[in-house]
Structures are given as structure tokens and as C-alpha cells.
């Protein structure tokens, strides 16, 4: 049968997408010098004469272009005025914020390289600069946009100082940590930073990407981007498992973790596996007082994009039910090539109360927004 799928109308509750909260919006720099005004002379000169040192194995190799010509961006998001997708606020307003009357957009800046910088003092300086840049270029001009505090987790004191400096500043919604680090995030060396996030009321967002310096899969480097893509899921699984097994949620009961851009359909199966083995291996991890799935449900939120598209679309409802519709938050990933459109991302209509939660209320409650 040859079905022409076209002129598909947005599903019946389309209006309820208006005013949604977008949990993954990518701002970009207009030019390489955008951060300079926010760096001290000492670090500006470093940036200009020495530059960054990432954990990526091969110098000047890039994880992009990633399929879509250019740099892995939605092709219609290149500003007419020049510059890079995501660098132009009026265009972001036109294509996203105003188009859908977005209530809040949570910024996920993947620029500046602060998180993966090997020179941790420089990484800390870049983190501060990127934070100031978010305020000056995005959050202040459009208060719907909420910043994500950048830190370099290998510099504990500086990271904590940065978190504490931003505490109480409602322009920042969360702390952003790249999920690919030197060690799994649950390790003790990171606890003081995670404690600072929780103590200052910031959820921690783990947005996929980053260069940990390790092969991106446990079995070695992938050949194709198609192969790389699911490796992001493996990274997310590693972090969830690490945070649970190390007892982080026992130690920091008010820690909230948001997994961004990792999809979510894999989470229930991971929990089933962890629960099964917890029954057998409890003696090894006696600090876990509850089943792994309980920790996951109490402490972990997921964002939707890139949303899974099950072969039988209605299976999505089961997946959402297993995770809990109170833990799923809509995200577009604008302006990346694989972004989701709020009108069409879900292939089945959601129950109205789930829809309200997923598009708005969960994020509103988590980030304490009005």
C-alpha cells in the first residue's frame, strides 16, 4: 500500500504546545571573540596565544559536520545576516520562542570548551566567561531564556565557587556537566561539586557530548556517526548506573539530575536490569537502601529529543508510563539538525494530563518557575 503522508495536521491538542518549556536550546557565538570581554587579561592572552587543550585524541578533528552540510545544523537556521545557527536571537525568536510562544527555553551552550579543557584553570576561566556571555547575550535580552552554569569538574574549588556565585540568580536554572568526563560522574571526587549543586538548589543537566578522552564506546571507537549516535545512550547509561551504584543519591538526597538529548526509551530496561542484579549483589553495595529504579525515579528526569519512534507508535505510551510521565520533559534541541518539532515529535496523541506535564508542568516544578 502506498500511503501519501502529507499535510498532516498537528494533533488535536496542538494548542497545548503553545507556551511549552523547551529543555534544550543551543545558543551559539557570533564570532570567536564573543567570550573575550568576559575573560581577565591573563586568560585572554592565554586564549589568544596558547588556546585550548581538549581531551580529544586527534588535534583539530571535529565531531562535526554530522550529516547536515555545514556543522550539523538545521539547514534553515542559518541567519540571513550571516553567522552561525543559534547565534542570532531574533532568528531564534522567530523559529522557536515566538513561533510556539515558548514560556522558557533552557540554554545548553556547547561552546567555549570549558567542561573538557585540560588546563583546568583556563577551563574555570572559560566557564565563568561563558556564564557571563549567556547573561549578556541571551538571558538579559530575552528573559525567557535561562542559563546553564558551566563548570570544569576537574577543578573542584573553582567549580564550587562558580556555583555559589550564581546561587539565587534566577537567570540560571541549572548546572551543566558534560557527561563524558575523565571518570564516571558518581565517583567520590565529584561529590563536593554535586553537593554544591544540590545545596544551592540547582538541578544538574547532563547534555550529551563532550570529549572524555576515552573511546566513546566500551568496545572502542565507532566508524560511523550512525554508530556514534547510540554511544551517547551508553554514556548516559554509564552515568545513571554510576550515580546509583556509588550511592550518590543516598549521600545527596536532594540531588536532581536531568539527562538531556539522550532519548529515554532505554531507561526502563536499564532499571529492570539494575533491579534484578541489586537483588543478587546487595552485599557488594550495601549502601543502596532502595532498589535502583526507585533512586532513578526520585532523582532523574529525562528530556525527549531525539525522541524514539517505536515501530508501533502506541508503544510510546508504555515507555512513558514505565518512566513516569512526571519525569519526562519536552525539548527541541533547536537549532541542531536532529531537533524535534513540538507539534509532530510524538507520533501518537498523549493523554491531556501527560501532555501538560511533559510540555510544561514537570519543568515548571523542577526548575521552580512561575
Amino acid at each position, binding site marked *: *500500500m*502506498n*500511503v*501519501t*503522508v*502529507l*499535510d*498532516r495536521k498537528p494533533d488535536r491538542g496542538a494548542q497545548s504546545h503553545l507556551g511549552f518549556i523547551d529543555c534544550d536550546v543551543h545558543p551559539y557565538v557570533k564570532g570567536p571573540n564573543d567570550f573575550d570581554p568576559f575573560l581577565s587579561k591573563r586568560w585572554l592572552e592565554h586564549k589568544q596565544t596558547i588556546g585550548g587543550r581538549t581531551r580529544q585524541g586527534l588535534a583539530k578533528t571535529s565531531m562535526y559536520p554530522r*550529516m*547536515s*552540510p555545514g556543522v550539523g545544523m*538545521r*539547514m*534553515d537556521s542559518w541567519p540571513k545576516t550571516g553567522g552561525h545557527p543559534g547565534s542570532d536571537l531574533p532568528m531564534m525568536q522567530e523559529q522557536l520562542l515566538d513561533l510556539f510562544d515558548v514560556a522558557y527555553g533552557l540554554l545548553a551552550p556547547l561552546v567555549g570548551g570549558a567542561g573538557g579543557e585540560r588546563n583546568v584553570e583556563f577551563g574555570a576561566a572559560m566557564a565563568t566567561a561563558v556564564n557571563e556571555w549567556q547573561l549578556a547575550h541571551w538571558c538579559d535580552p530575552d528573559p525567557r531564556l535561562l542559563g546553564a552554569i558551566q563548570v570544569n569538574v576537574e577543578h573542584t574549588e573553582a567549580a564550587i565557587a562558580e556555583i555559589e556565585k550564581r546561587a539565587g540568580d534566577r537567570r540560571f536554572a541549572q548546572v551543566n556537566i558534560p557527561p563524558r568526563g575523565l571518570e564516571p560522574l558518581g565517583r567520590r571526587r565529584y561529590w563536593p561539586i554535586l553537593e554544591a549543586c544540590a545545596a544551592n538548589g540547582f538541578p544538574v543537566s547532563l547534555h550529551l557530548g563532550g570529549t572524555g578522552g576515552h573511546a566513546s564506546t566500551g568496545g572502542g571507537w565507532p566508524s560511523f556517526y550512525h554508530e556514534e549516535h547510540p554511544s551517547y545512550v551508553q554514556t548516559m547509561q554509564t552515568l545513571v548506573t554510576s550515580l546509583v551504584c556509588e550511592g550518590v543519591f543516598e549521600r545527596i538526597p536532594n540531588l536532581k539530575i536531568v539527562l538531556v538529548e539522550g532519548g529515554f526509551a532505554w531507561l526502563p530496561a536499564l532499571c529492570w536490569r539494575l533491579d534484578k542484579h541489586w537483588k543478587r549483589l546487595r552485599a557488594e553495595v550495601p549502601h543502596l537502601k532502595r532498589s535502583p529504579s526507585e533512586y532513578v525515579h526520585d532523582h532523574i528526569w529525562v528530556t525527549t529529543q531525539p525522541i524514539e519512534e517505536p515501530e508501533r507508535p502506541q508503544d510510546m505510551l508504555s515507555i512513558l508510563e514505565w518512566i513516569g510521565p512526571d519525569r519526562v520533559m519536552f525539548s527541541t534541541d533547536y537549532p541542531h*539538525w*536532529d*531537533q*524535534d*518539532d513540538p*507539534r*509532530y*515529535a510524538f507520533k501518537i496523541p498523549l493523554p491531556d494530563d501527560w501532555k501538560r506535564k511533559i510540555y510544561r508542568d514537570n519543568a515548571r516544578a523542577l526548575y521552580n518557575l512561575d
Partner: protein
Amino acid sequence: MNRHVVAKVEDIQPGTRKIVTVKGREIGIFRVGDDFYGLINRCPHQGAPLCRGEIVSRLVAPSPGDYRLTRPGEMIRCPWHCWEFDIRTGQSLCDPNSVQARAFDVAVEPGRALVEGPFVAESVPVTVEETYVVVTL
């Protein structure tokens, strides 16, 4: 159904496209060699402006490492999630039997014929000397 004059033939060079609006619908008119095709400018996946994507070939590999670039310039790749569609038919590469972008009838007509028959030329003035691209919709 009406016949709409949407461009002069020379306005659309081989390997290029032009996006036109007919009855409020955006349609991409593609020229592959000397043939013209029309596709709705709306991706069946999530509604992106399909016809603004890259025009590419159809790359096939009968076995790993054995690559054949076939049908150059006959596929359009969506500017968002990169699903590919056959410009000639609108059929998708990922799921040709059930996912399709609507295709429109496109013909080339001499101005002389158009001047005689009924047609709609909202934005393209027609003269007998020229040749035109005509969409039926």
C-alpha cells in the same frame, strides 16, 4: 484542477529548484536534466521545508565497502533530519511503501499553447515566444 504557470523554463537551471506558491501551497519545482518535477515543500516526518534541503545522489552499497553513486541529483535530503526522497516520485528512501511526500504534475509548455488554453499565471507573464513550467493543481 487548474494549470498554473510557475516559471519560465530558463529560470530553473538543471540541478536546481525553485520554490513557488500555488493555491497557498509551497511547491518545490526541481529540474533534473531537462525534466521537471514538483514536490510539496513540507516533509512528511515533522513538517520541515523539505524542498530547501540538499539535492543529492542515491548512494547504494550492495555490500559493505562497495559503494555506487547512482541517480545523481535525483534525491532531496530534508533540511532537518535528513530523510531522503526521490525527487521524481516523492517516495522516501527510508520507508518507500508508506512514507511519501506529495508529488505534483509538472509539464513544460510553449507559450503559444498556453495562450490558447485555460491556465493561471499569477506572477509569470506569458508570451508566445517563451517556454514555461506548468503545475497542475
